[in-house]
């Protein structure tokens, strides 16, 4: 697994050497910070019913999803596209590393950067803790949901990146796929058939995240994310190997 580690390390460096990482970090924190302050202001207003700030931060609103979908798109778009475009893929694939090692290394780098992106939001938890007791279970569950859904999104993103040498095309494909994946579950409320409703209900990421924010962890959902990650990473290794059959 040395090869995967070498790929992982280079990829992490590549994030921090490029302005992209800092732009993403800045906007991510600006949006999250603004959003958190809006929630706090909302809950502080005596005219509105009270609530738990962290539950609102992670669930029940569209903000979380905007952040997740954009992060999934921007963090992955260049992972493989850039290698194809610049030709560095030749160096990589003539080294004694397998397609699986390359894909794993790059994916884990994206995942680590994604975690790094979310890490500062722990400050919000600390802020809330400073004024009121925090129920740690739902907080942990929320982060579990963020990591699980994020992992799935990143896997879809890296797959899209393996299908094109153009980063923009990869980004558009990822964005579209994530939008579909997100909205297909919302159709739950629009269909009438009991079976369709049940199936879409299982796929409804919105309710998944709401539940995580309330502290409900359904292991079937974790299995869903994990198998999705496995499936798309497998597709990515196949797409990388597909250069051979073209």
């Amino acid at each position, binding site marked *: 697994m040395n090869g995967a580690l070498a790929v992982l390390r280079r990829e992490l*460096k590549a994030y921090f050497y490029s302005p992209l990482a800092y732009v993403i970090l800045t906007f991510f924190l600006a949006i999250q910070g603004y959003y958190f302050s809006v929630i706090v202001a909302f809950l502080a207003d005596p005219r509105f019913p009270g609530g738990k700030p962290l539950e609102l931060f992670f669930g029940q609103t569209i903000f979380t999803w905007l952040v997740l979908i954009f992060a999934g798109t921007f963090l992955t778009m260049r992972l493989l596209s850039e290698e194809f475009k610049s030709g560095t893929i030749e160096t990589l694939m003539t*080294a*004694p590393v397998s397609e699986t090692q390359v894909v794993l290394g790059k994916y884990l780098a994206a995942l680590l950067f994604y975690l790094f992106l979310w890490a500062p939001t722990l400050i919000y938890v600390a802020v809330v803790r400073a004024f009121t007791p925090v129920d740690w279970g739902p907080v942990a569950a929320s982060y579990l949901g963020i990591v699980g859904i994020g992992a799935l999104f990143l896997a879809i993103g890296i797959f899209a990146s393996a299908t094109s040498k153009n980063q923009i095309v990869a980004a558009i494909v990822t964005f579209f796929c994530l939008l579909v994946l997100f909205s297909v579950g919302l159709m739950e409320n629009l269909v009438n058939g009991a079976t369709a409703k049940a199936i879409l209900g299982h796929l409804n990421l919105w309710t998944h995240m709401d539940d995580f924010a309330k502290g409900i962890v359904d292991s079937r959902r974790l299995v869903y994310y994990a198998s999705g990650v496995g499936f798309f990473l497998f597709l990515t290794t196949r797409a990388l190997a597909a250069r051979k059959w073209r």
Partner: protein
Amino acid sequence: MIEAHDLTRQFGSFTAVAGVSFAVADGEIVGMLGPNGAGKTTTLRMITGFLPPSSGRVTLGGRDLFGDDVALRREIGYLPENVALYPEMRVEEYLVWRGHLEGMERGLLRRRLAEVLERCLLADVRRQIIGTLSKGYRQRVGLAGAFLHDPRTLVLDEPTVGLDPKQIIAIRELIRELGRERTLLLSTHILPEVELLCGRVLIIDRGKIVAEGTPTELRERWLGALGVEVEFGAAAPGQRDALLALPGVETAEAHGDGRRFVLGCALGADPRAEIFRLAVARDWTLVELSPTRASLEDIFVRLTTHDEIEAQRAEVAS
């Protein structure tokens, strides 16, 4: 020892390489010549394991490169065409990364890194960001990366492209050194380079090997015998007959004011020494004696310009 067995590569309905077979032995430098689009790069991509052939095999010391053993790729160092590097990395950092990718152990990597930086004349830019380097330096970083892990086989796709004349000399010297202890295959379209570096030449055209041999063999086979130009200080009677009488001389044409001759020689014959002795014996001042040896360039042009010839023929026929 790297061997290509009947390599064929198709892209859709286009056949880029059609049944190419050759072997490169240890300590041998083989040059691959061919016009653009002849299939050089595709062949090299197959030889290095990047692109599996549609049919045929590549073996490295008898073992199949496209088998399950990914570690076999460690024995090949590859400098791809247009040297793709990561522009945001520093030279040394990039080379260390290549070492990690090859699974080199720390101490060995440190030693090899120092050696490679020095041999590729990169020591003074080791801390520079690759994106800020000139083409010549980037080429050398790529070359350094290719032999950092000390592979037994080196494959270089146009290694001297984009270098200035001084750098070209330095890199050729390095290639010659590297070829001494390794199997080395390089592609180029700079013909003098092949003559200077390579013990053997493969001329490839439209996906096929059209000629193979040492530069000398190719010359003899494809352009026949040597020609010699002789010029004496002054014309004298009997010069032409005396030249014609020499062994190996078949034709002698007089040029200019009658003291200059262009000789056609028999295959394999080289009458230059006899010409010199003749001039001394007859007291004729020799002011020029030069071989008009066909260059590889002539052979190359002859072998690869059939497109135009065929097009002309087709035009005439219609």
